[in-house]
């Protein structure tokens, strides 16, 4: 069973929901696929058991074989390879690793070498809980490859929670690909509603099953609840905003350990989505 937790807008509480739900369950694996700005690890204490690099390839030109014909440069859609007077320039950070330049090279002058674009860190939280997160190196353009590696490394887990990147771009699509159920974390403001609609559009186009948790439900207005009712989207739970919660979160603590209210909310969400098999 794979459950993705996502939100159109950032800051709605997606990570809070992910780490607390994960901590509430008796057995689960969590991956944080928000590789640009991973935060789940700030709340989860555990031993790092493994670290692995994620690599992409970029071309290396053998100057002895190159005849400066320029075919690689003409083919490259990303302007990552440019033959100059006495050498061929390769801009590693522009390269998408499509393999095209080597294909079109008439003298077989191009081979590929690896470049690390980020890391995946494995943490054992307790004996039934594994947690993985990815971290994209600053200055790299895309984290999709790290997300795909995270998903691949955990494809056989019995219960997998996926903390997804915010928004509706290609990273989000990569993160929720193959999920059995998606939980949207939203907030009842005009911004929150607008961003959630984009997520709903994405999930419907992808034929995903999903429900919504409205966080900070006592702020803003009722428009989001009306929208959910009109669209017949399941409202999984409402969670109130509380200054007390904000200061617990600010210090990187888990809300379920400090608030019965919050713990009950996690229990309800878990039961609605998973049944009682994974109850604490």
């Amino acid at each position: 069973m794979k459950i993705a937790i996502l939100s159109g807008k950032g800051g709605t509480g997606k990570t809070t929901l992910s780490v607390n739900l994960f901590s509430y369950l008796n057995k689960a694996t969590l991956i944080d696929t928000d590789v640009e700005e991973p935060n789940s690890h700030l709340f989860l204490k555990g031993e790092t058991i493994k670290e692995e690099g994620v690599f992409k390839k970029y071309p290396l030109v053998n100057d002895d074989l190159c005849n400066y014909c320029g075919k690689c440069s003409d083919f490259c859609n990303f302007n990552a390879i440019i033959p100059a007077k006495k050498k061929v320039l390769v801009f590693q950070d522009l390269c998408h690793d499509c393999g095209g330049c080597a294909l079109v090279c008439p003298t077989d002058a191009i081979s590929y070498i690896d470049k690390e674009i980020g890391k995946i860190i494995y943490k054992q939280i307790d004996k039934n809980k594994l947690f993985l997160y990815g971290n994209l190196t600053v200055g790299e353009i895309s984290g999709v490859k790290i997300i795909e590696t995270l998903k691949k490394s955990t494809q056989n887990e019995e219960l997998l929670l996926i903390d997804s990147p915010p928004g509706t771009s290609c990273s989000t699509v990569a993160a929720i690909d193959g999920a059995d159920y998606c939980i949207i974390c939203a907030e009842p403001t005009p911004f929150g509603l607008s961003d959630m609609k984009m997520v709903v559009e994405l999930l419907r186009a992808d034929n995903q099953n999903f429900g919504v948790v409205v966080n900070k439900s006592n702020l803003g207005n009722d428009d989001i609840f009306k929208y959910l009712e009109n669209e017949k989207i399941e409202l999984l739970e409402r969670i109130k905003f509380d200054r007390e919660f904000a200061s617990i979160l600010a210090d990187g603590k888990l809300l379920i350990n400090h608030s019965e209210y919050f713990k009950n909310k996690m229990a309800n969400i878990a039961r609605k989505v998973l049944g009682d098999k994974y109850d604490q």
Partner: protein
Amino acid sequence: MKIAISSLENNENSKVSDRFARTEYFVIYDHEALSFTSIENTAKSAGSGAGGKAVKILGDLGIDIVLVPELGPKALEALEAFEIKSYQYPREKTVREVLYLYFEKKLPELLISTSKGRH
């Protein structure tokens, strides 16, 4: 000797551009023929790597010198590889004015990057 200047329009009286790789035009001055020509910069719409592409266009035209507002690290690397020298002009001038400044040796040569590139 051919000199290319990034400019907003296609003639020597045009204002110079405040961008290099995504400038609208390059006005080209041929010092042997004493004539001006221009090309539209097709690199400007590149999704990524406009700097390298613009330099390749100029390199293929046999340009020796470029007069620019600023350069990204990729454009600078590419200019060096094409053995094209680059000099920085002040903003808000015309193509003709910056060319005079160049011949009066009043423009600084660019050797390290003055700006960073975009993806």
